């Protein structure tokens, strides 16, 4: 349990190794974010038959850096009617949780051999922190991230940012429930909250030695899909980007922001995208696990990091793909999807996994168990549909009375 680095007391080497890990995590996240901005613009450009950024550096790779520098030197405007302190605080509240959330992601380490790497003669995890409540820490950070958006909207002292902020709050709070419930399935199956342990549980071969033992398979695909959808909504990315619907809200919660404060929001948004992809990989796709071979440093250092980054890029592409393909949802569709589809489905799947687990532990008859599960599912779905119909009838009746 816990990082072996801290097992033998805290010395100078331990502090230096930790500081190095902080630096590497920080730089990795920043570089990944920079790359993600470029990647998104380039891929979306390809999907729309445009060229995209191609001036700064090879293939326009340095475009983000150029944009960042430009924003840094722009005038920093403070609206007259703004709440000065909160207006300045909001971008920081958006960016700091985005940084912290990435700290719990295991970036490398060969999990068939304990998941540790050797650094200056010390064994350690290749992740900044492995708190025993790691997954909850991520949820807590995304919960604090809401404040950045919400307070930015309120403190601007103008109408459209306020509307954007209110939309963002409603959306993020709604989808956090579905996100947490799909996470619960992973926690149930793996029996741990620590991200390192979750990855360790997924190491090794599963059915038939070919299909990997990833949570994607073990939890039965549904939680992974719910997590991906709820995660996209949580990030306010298309098709769930009602928060910054340009046609309706000018620019959304960040309309009044300029210069480096705007850049911080932009940075936080893309950092959260990278973190969310990294978490999908960690929770459902075995993190850095994959086939490894070769001598010592290649086997424990190169391949796990390579697999992790490869899986990460796949999900970054998926997020860009969503953006390039799907039209934005209407507000009522957004709420219907969250409350009437994703939350019941995630909760039901969680209970199903729990039932299967109990049945297996107690040695119950499989046929009877599955029969009972089918009956319960049919009854539950019918009841849910009936209640939704009744609510709709009521709403229509109310509308008629009012009309």
């Amino acid at each position, binding site marked *: 349990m816990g990082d072996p680095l801290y097992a033998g007391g805290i010395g100078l080497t331990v502090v230096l190794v930790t500081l190095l890990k902080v630096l590497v995590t920080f730089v990795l996240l920043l570089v990944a974010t920079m790359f993600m901005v470029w990647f998104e613009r380039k891929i979306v450009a390809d999907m729309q038959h445009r060229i995209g950024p191609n001036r700064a550096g090879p293939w326009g790779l340095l475009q983000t850096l150029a944009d960042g520098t430009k924003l840094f030197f722009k005038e920093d405007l403070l609206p007259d*009617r*703004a*709440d000065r302190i*909160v207006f300045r605080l909001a971008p920081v509240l958006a960016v700091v949780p985005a940084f912290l959330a990435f700290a719990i992601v295991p970036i490398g380490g060969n999990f068939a051999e304990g998941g540790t790497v050797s650094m200056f003669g010390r064994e350690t995890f290749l992740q900044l922190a492995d*708190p*025993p*409540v790691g997954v*909850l*820490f991520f*949820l*807590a950070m*995304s*919960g*604090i991230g*809401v*404040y950045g958006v*919400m*307070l930015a*909207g*309120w*403190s601007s*002292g103008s109408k459209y940012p*306020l509307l954007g*902020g*209110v939309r963002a*709050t*409603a959306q993020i*709070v709604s989808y*956090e429930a579905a996100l947490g419930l799909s996470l619960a399935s992973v926690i149930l199956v793996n029996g741990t*909250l620590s991200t390192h342990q979750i990855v360790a549980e997924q190491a090794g071969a599963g059915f038939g030695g070919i299909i990997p033992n990833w949570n994607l398979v073990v939890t039965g695909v549904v939680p992974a899909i719910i997590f991906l959808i709820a995660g996209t909504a949580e990030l306010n990315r298309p098709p769930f980007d009602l928060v910054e619907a340009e046609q309706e809200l000018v620019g959304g919660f960040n309309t009044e922001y300029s210069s480096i404060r705007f850049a911080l929001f932009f940075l936080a948004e893309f950092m959260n995208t990278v973190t969310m992809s990294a978490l999908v990989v960690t929770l459902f796709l075995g993190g850095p696990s994959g086939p490894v071979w070769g001598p010592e440093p290649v086997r424990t250092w190169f391949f796990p990091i390579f697999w992790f980054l490869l899986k990460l890029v796949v999900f970054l592409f998926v997020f860009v793909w969503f953006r390039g393909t799907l039209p934005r949802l209407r507000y009522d569709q957004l709420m219907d999807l969250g409350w009437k589809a994703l939350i019941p489905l995630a909760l039901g799947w969680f209970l199903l996994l729990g039932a299967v687990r109990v049945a297996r532990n107690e040695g119950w008859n499989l046929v009877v168990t599955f029969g009972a599960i089918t009956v319960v599912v049919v009854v539950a779905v019918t009841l849910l549909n009936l209640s939704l119909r009744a609510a709709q009838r009521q709403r229509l009746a109310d509308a008629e009375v009012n009309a």
Partner: protein
Amino acid sequence: MVAQNIFFGIIAFVMVVAALRVVTTKNIVHAALYLVIVLAGVAAQFILTGAEFVGVTQILVYIGAVVVLFLFGIMLTRARIGREVEVDNEKRWLAGLVALVLFAVMSFALVDAFEDSRIESVSGGTPQLTSEVSDAIFKDYLIPFEAASFLLLAALIGAIVVARRE
């Protein structure tokens, strides 16, 4: 435990100042933000005593959900920037009395339950495991836990009924 004691003092001081500002500030959104500081202080105190799960849950539930909903409600109804004059309530002395009584009851319960036992002798000096929390809830305190859930469910349904009837 010296370092823990010093940090307990610092965090407790910040919490008390923030708690006073919650009721004295003239801006209702600022009051909610001061409340966030108080709740974050509670989470920090939990983590300081090695109760990581309870600390993170405190952030998740109170900061990430309850105060967010407070602010949401404020923004939908009265999102004015700057000073608001009429935020003082006439019954504030009664509220103060209730708070005082609540404080007395809670401190009595705490002192009565733990007397002068120290944290390391209760927890064994190691951080509390999440499984210990769940074992306590679902074995020793199952009935109170179910009663609390039932009460919350009833309150939830009641709130929906009240809101629907306008």
